[in-house]
């Protein structure tokens, strides 16, 4: 059954890809290798997973303000996520998505970290704040 969630546009655009979901915040400095897209933070539940081409679903950002350019660098290296979904977007992540032109939504009508499962196929229409989720 396809689910439809409604949220707020942070950065416009449309994208479709498999979900990569975590309940832990993500920091792009020291947390993600921007040359490979692999998550590297020791102790992070997604350590060893790759963000490239995924719809990255996480509660919010944390840590270094270097994160904005690192999101841009990951996208420029072709290993960025195709879209991002947050509970509440934090400024460093928002700026990264603006400059990297990664569609991003937050404040959905149900908690995205719970409503979306790893591997679900997710279609993000950020312009209209609509997220369609098809279970894997």
């Amino acid at each position, binding site marked *: 059954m396809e689910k439809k969630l409604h949220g707020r546009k*942070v*950065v416009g655009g449309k994208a479709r890809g498999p979900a990569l979901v975590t309940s832990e*915040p993500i920091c792009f*400095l*020291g*947390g993600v290798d*921007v040359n490979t897209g692999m998550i*590297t*933070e*020791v102790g*992070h539940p997604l350590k060893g997973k790759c963000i490239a081409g995924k719809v990255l679903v996480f509660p*919010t*950002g*944390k*840590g*270094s*303000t*270097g*994160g*904005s*350019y*690192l999101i*841009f*660098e990951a*996208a*420029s*290296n072709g290993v960025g996520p195709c879209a991002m979904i947050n509970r509440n*977007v*934090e*400024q*460093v992540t*928002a*700026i*990264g998505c*603006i*400059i990297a032109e990664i569609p991003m939504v937050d404040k959905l009508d149900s908690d995205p970290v719970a409503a979306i499962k790893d591997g679900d196929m997710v279609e993000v229409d950020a312009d209209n704040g609509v997220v369609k989720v098809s279970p894997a």
Partner: protein
Amino acid sequence: MRLTREEEEMLAGKRGWPIQKSMEILVQLGEIYEAEKMIEVSHVHMPGSSVVVAGEAGTKFVEKMAGLGGKFCALTTLNTGALNFDAWEETGYPEKTYKLQRRLTDAYSSMGAVPCHTCTPYLIGNCPRRGEHLAWGESSAIAFANSVMGAYTNREGGPSALAAALTGRVPEYGYHLQENRYGHIEVTVNTKLETVDDFGGLGYWVGTIAGSKVPVFTGITQIGADEIKALGAALASSGAVALFHIVGVTPEAPTREAAFGGRKPEQALEFGTNELRDARQRLNKHQGQPVSLVCIGCPHTSISEIAQIAQGLAGKKLKSGVELWITTALPMRALAERCGYTKIIEEAGGRFVIDTCPILSPMAEVAKKKGYSAMATNSAKLAHYAPGQWALPTYYGSLRACLDSALSGSFDQREAR
């Protein structure tokens, strides 16, 4: 958003592409966070000053701004870079990093930035006053500016700080508004905290829980400038804390009521000896390997920290094969030299590394080249980032334990559990 006529002109491209692009970024950001208007900023501290963060893509973006005539209209200091310009080869940094960093630093400088490359601008001349609006990046400096100086800044990322430097504006939301500066979480400290690593442990433990909320500490009566710097840096590493209050110490917390703005805390935490032990355990990630690198200066060392290091090393020699890095700002090293500390530290075998730090430099390459076995530090921020960034086992403990490990090559296990 309501823009002034001048801001409308910026957005329309009448002041050139760099200012137009900047205004677009700021308006987009303002719309996300429902800002009503722009406000003027007097200082910018520029994150994305290291090529480890900016990369090729970010460097090209900054170069484009500079190439098309961008000029900074607010005092702009550069955050930590990716290497020490004066001795990068002997420190072990690769030439490709030097070439890219040179381009990035030159691009920022040509727009008017002060290329001080430090994470502690507040120690070397970019010292804000209470209530001043800033656009600062560098998570540890933001926490210091908001909490200790009582200035107002959000957590600016590289592109938004660049836009703020070019336009002198940021959207008015978040920590620029008084209503968002009151505490959310009460943290009662009921154990005696003295050293930088004690306060780093507190910050690391609380940051994990606080996320981006505002913690209010009670029960801290004595805290020095170095300890408060470590506390803020740790809070902003495990969490996204941009502002904290210490009742009776920081300017917006003369009383508990003032810190919470008369509201009830959403959450109450207690921090005692068990919590401190828990934080220390989580920050120590090693299997007893010998120490080959000791790093002090995350955030960059103050002159008082350098004095303590000199005192600890006077007349002694580091164990052969162990490196001691003291990361600091150029003016602080100059002062250390005048005080005679540099001579003592260098004679013992220690090394000053200016302009950079292990977190914002290509440390994985240096560690590989030099075959480091483990690192020791008294910085919770560095201990938090290092294992994920360059997979090096890490010891966390007091300055004394770190210096002892530089002299003996092994870390006092009582400190490293």
